[in-house]
């Protein structure tokens, strides 16, 4: 027996090391692009060590027994009677207890690391809606940039203040690791400090209906200079757009996420395409046909369920309470789509 | 103690417990009006519930050493008793969940309801529990007439409670603008009273069944069904012991 214990002990350690090296060399995580990511990867590494060891600890003696202690041909006797061993049982209760408490403690410390606050952080307001994202940057000279891309300067903490218009969504950039739900009726916060320039994607991680799978938008981490340049450019564009009705309409549409459902180039989507919408004859579910004029489009936005276009019964458009001016802007924009 | 004395003492025990419960309910109302102290209200509700569970629902019977013969009526009644209690444990999780919902959504506020009516229906339900206990004790003692009369009174009071809540209370609330879709206060109120009323309703069906069967001469020595109906009826009362303060007494009233 003594000999068996020694062999198994050695095998467990060898096996554990092999598993760990194997897992480590495969490289299981995406690139690390934020300080939060490096904290989390540190914890992950610890967990991998624990998992490798525990897996070996159980599986090696199991397989060893199967091979060494299997019943020999023709043997019909029972094995040696052994009911238990109180000391051993206490050990394998107490030891894991200490291990898990240690891990819980480390986990709490680790959580605190990822939540470390930088009072200088830039605040971006994030809105999730079926099935798009909008990002509202801090106002500059009374002008706010609203975009459906998230641009971030590298090395600077950003505080995302997030909410949702309709159902629960979840903000997740795998390269940043951290994830946070957007809940209607409340504001949730997430702090991220990007460390690596590059193009990533925010991917909605909470099932939010039909097009949940494609609720993705670019996240661009660039140098402070590039970020500032982008910001200046956006401010200029916003300034310019705000001059004409169709420009304001286009900006509003972009900020409200309408294009998540409505294409502007004729391709099919969740809702009818806006290409050639104005003046089009629309067949409705009740069998009648309407002309898409100002009044109809106005109603379609304020009370989308009043008249439903045939073929789109199953996916309801949320109602928007824009002002009359804003709707006029949107209609002006839709008119340009020919 | 001889047999008749024992019968007497069980009946008078029912009366004493009822007096305790009535006093505690008054105290509860008083606390709510004058201190509005939530911990005190919780304590009173717990004491009330404890009294009902022990004396009216005689939970201790679960522990009775039953006969060895597992084919006997008493042994089977013991098994049924355990089954019923398990069911009640399960059911109380529904009501517990409703309480959690209420606390989470309303916190220290409550729907603005008619206080007098609330106290009235609560009293009716409490009195019905008293008569239920009397009825049960009487069939135990072999007094069929008394059992039938008391069960009938229980049934009528129970019906009064049900109608009081569903017809009167709900009407008034809707009239006052507290409707199921008016906001969380209305939603919580209708959900909690609705679920409770549903249980009262099933309790009434059970009462009707034992009353009719009792009239036809069932339940002499084999009267476990009466006990079961009674325990269920008291359980519904216990739930109300918690729902009443939760809906009428705790916190400040809102629409």
């Amino acid at each position, binding site marked *: 027996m003594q000999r068996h214990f020694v062999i198994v002990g050695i095998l467990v350690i060898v096996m554990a090391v092999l598993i760990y090296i194997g897992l480590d060399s495969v490289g299981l995580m995406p690139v690390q692009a934020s300080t939060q990511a490096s904290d989390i990867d540190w914890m992950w590494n610890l967990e991998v060590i624990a998992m490798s060891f525990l897996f070996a600890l159980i599986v090696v003696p199991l397989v060893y027994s199967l091979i060494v202690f299997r019943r020999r041909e023709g043997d019909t006797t029972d094995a040696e009677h052994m009911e238990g061993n109180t000391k051993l049982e206490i050990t394998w209760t107490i030891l894991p207890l200490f291990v898990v408490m240690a891990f819980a403690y480390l986990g709490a410390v680790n959580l605190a690391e990822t939540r470390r606050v930088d009072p200088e952080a830039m605040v971006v307001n994030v809105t999730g809606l079926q099935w798009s994202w909008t990002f509202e940057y801090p106002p500059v000279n009374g002008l706010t940039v609203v975009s459906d891309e998230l641009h971030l300067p590298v090395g600077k903490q950003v505080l995302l203040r997030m909410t949702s218009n309709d*159902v629960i969504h979840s903000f997740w950039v795998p390269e940043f690791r951290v994830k946070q739900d957007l809940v209607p009726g409340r504001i949730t916060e997430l702090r991220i400090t990007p460390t690596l320039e590059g193009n990533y994607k925010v991917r909605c991680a909470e099932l939010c209906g039909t097009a949940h799978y494609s609720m993705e938008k670019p996240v661009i981490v660039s140098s402070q200079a590039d970020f500032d340049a982008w910001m200046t450019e956006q401010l200029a564009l916003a300034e310019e757009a705000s001059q004409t009705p169709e420009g304001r309409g286009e900006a509003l549409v972009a900020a409200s996420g309408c294009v998540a459902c409505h294409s502007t180039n004729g391709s099919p989507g969740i809702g009818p395409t806006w290409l050639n919408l104005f003046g089009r004859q629309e067949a409705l579910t009740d069998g009648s046909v309407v002309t898409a004029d100002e009044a109809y489009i106005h109603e379609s936005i304020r009370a989308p369920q009043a008249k439903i276009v045939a073929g789109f019964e199953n996916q309801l458009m949320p109602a928007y309470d824009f002002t009359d001016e804003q709707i006029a802007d949107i209609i002006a924009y839709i008119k340009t789509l020919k | 103690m001889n047999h008749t004395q024992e019968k007497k003492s069980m009946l008078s025990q029912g009366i004493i417990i009822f007096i305790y419960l009535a006093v505690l309910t008054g105290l509860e109302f008083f606390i709510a009006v004058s201190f509005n102290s939530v911990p005190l209200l919780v304590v009173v509700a717990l004491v009330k519930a404890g009294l009902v569970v022990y004396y009216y629902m005689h939970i201790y019977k679960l522990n009775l050493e039953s006969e060895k013969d597992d084919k006997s009526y008493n042994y089977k009644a013991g098994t049924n008793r355990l089954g019923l209690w398990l069911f009640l444990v399960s059911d109380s999780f529904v009501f517990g969940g409703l309480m959690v919902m209420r606390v989470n959504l309303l916190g220290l506020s409550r729907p603005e309801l008619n206080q007098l009516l609330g106290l009235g229906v609560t009293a009716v339900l409490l009195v019905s529990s008293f008569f239920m206990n009397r009825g049960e004790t009487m069939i135990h003692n072999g007094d069929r007439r008394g059992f039938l009369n008391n069960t009938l009174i229980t049934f009528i009071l129970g019906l009064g409670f049900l109608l009081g809540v569903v017809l009167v209370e709900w009407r008034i609330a809707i009239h006052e603008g507290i409707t199921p879709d008016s906001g969380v206060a209305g939603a919580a109120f209708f959900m909690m009273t609705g679920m409770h009323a549903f249980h009262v309703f099933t309790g009434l069906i059970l009462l009707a069944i034992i009353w009719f069967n009792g009239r036809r001469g069932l339940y002499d020595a084999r009267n476990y069904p009466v006990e079961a109906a009674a325990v269920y009826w008291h359980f519904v009362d216990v739930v109300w012991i918690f729902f009443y303060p939760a809906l009428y007494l705790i916190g400040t009233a809102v629409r």
Partner: protein
Amino acid sequence: MRRLNSVWRGLLLLAVGGMIGYGIGLGLDLLVTGALNYSGSVASAFALLVSVTAFFFGIYGYRGITRGLVWQVVGTLLGGFFVTGIRALLGSDTIFGTFFFSEPAWVFGALTGVVTFMFGVGVVADWVKWARGIDTPEHHEDEPGGGKYLDVSLDHKVIGIQYTVTALVLIAIGGTFALIFRTELAASQLQFLTTTFKLFNQTGPQFYNTIMSLHGIIMIISILLGISGIMNYAVPFLVGAHDMAFPRLNAFAYWISVPASVLLLMSLVLGGFDTGWTGYPPLSARAPVGMQMFFLGVFTAGWSSILGSLNVIATVVRMRAKGMSAMRLPIFVWASVATSIIALTATQLIGLSFQLVMFQRLFGMGFFDAAKGGNPVLFQHLFWFYSHPAVYVFVLPGLGIISELLPVFVRKPLFGYRWVAMSSLGIALVGFTVWAHHMFTSGMNEYLRVPFMYSTLLVAVPTGVKFFSWVATIWGGKITTPTPMLFVLGAIIVFLLGGLTGPPNAAIALDLHLHDTYFIVGHFHDTIFGGFIFPFFAAIYFWFPKATGRRMNEFWGKVHFWLMTPSFFVLTLGMMVIGLRGMRRRIVDYDPALGFDFTHLLMTIAGFLIALSVLIFVINLFHSIRHGEKAEGNVWNSRSPEWQVPSPMPVHNYDVPFEVVGEPYDYGLADSKYVQFNGHQGEKHPVTAEGAQH
């Protein structure tokens, strides 16, 4: 020959009934909407209801389950028309809805359908008699042969088998859904579930969401029925009872799961639902009517679970054989009790949470509607208060089976019996305090997350006790590996993998990365397969001879194992790897730039191989009932009481009551006995330990 005929007749009627139902539905739909909608819901709903009913009619005639289904269909229609009539009288502007009935009409109809099913099938007949003061005989005799399985029976063994077979049918349905969506996932881009795809009023991505959600919930219900099956079958004879404590309640608990399954299937055709099995509002407050069918189906199935577990506890407390003290209970009974405690209490909370959403939809009650002051996160608390402990409902019986079977095949006592028994209770109790680990990213109170991490990790300790005991049991044994033992060993390793991937999820910061990814999907397929599917198969292989007097084929059993296990590792390890690298859950399509195509392809192939192995199992199972090798004695040379009497088990289990005189697992101790039969050894002699035929 006659049997074959009836099956063919059933299939024929299935097709005919389906067409008739489809026609009726198409006609009604045309009347209401004025347009022909071939891939629509109404026609499919009617086709589903009529064809299933017709199938059982062909197999079994108008009695038992067929009568129940007919009554359910009629009840559903009557209930629906009742509400529709009321709406018409009240002058409601939408009397009919997109799915023929309006939503309230469907909900009420579905509810009456469930009630009428129970009356139709006849499980409540005795209770109605009791209420009218009429006594009924203690036992009903079942008809001999296979027919009794399609009718109400009060025998726990029949009910156990009914549960088990229903669970297998649901696994097949849920598995088929998995195969459909795995095919879609085999490569990036939309393959056939495209935006122009139309079925049951759903586009491709919507249909994906529906079948993915249904896969989850149907599999979960099948687990609940599967463990009820094993518990019903084994617990009474393990404790020496002649039946369960409440046979009628037992039958009721089984039969209510049948209309529940029908409702779940109805949700597929009535517009589906796209919320996952978790049904979070506000999304579930806006989904189509299928959502309500899902809620009602789970609600009804929940009652099956509650009443079944009530019965198990009462049976164990009241009906044990003489001398069977707490520390001499078979370990599986301990596990069953622990499971039942959870199922009895926590199940109410999932019922309640679903009920609240149903009412929010029907009456505009604003529980989870932020605009009305409601709180969407509250739903998650109520839901997980059940659904976390539920995962221990899934595994505790499975772990019990592992502990129960290991000693038999190792010929050594279970190492540390007491501690293993207590660890089941420990898992169950600690399991009640950990639910919010599913909500680390939900926006709940930040400071509550850390205590939930501690409690979650605490569960690893009692689970670890089981693992170490198993290893110590095997160590130094004399091991044989027939099919049940293979599945036991597979279960240990697979569950270990699943269990070990639990603590990383519990470390909050790490979970912020892992939440809602395929890593989680991998974690729970591992725990569920290791904790339920593998032990379930082990139990079926193990107790099959007890039920039929024949063995299942060893060769095909081994093929089943060696095909399923490696494929399974490919499936779940693949899930975990891509999950870590950024694969989200519940998506019909993934970004090709992520480079997951090849792994997904492998996983799809693995999924099909698992299905193939299950198919082999099913064929083996049904073939062996008639043609398996005879095995009427103590096949596995076990000490357990049920193996001391001949197989198949006699109707009332033990003709001679037994007394417990020793420890359950004292293998290797000369002259020790677990049970002793006290009766007259003349007419009904138990078989001897050597497995001799009598």
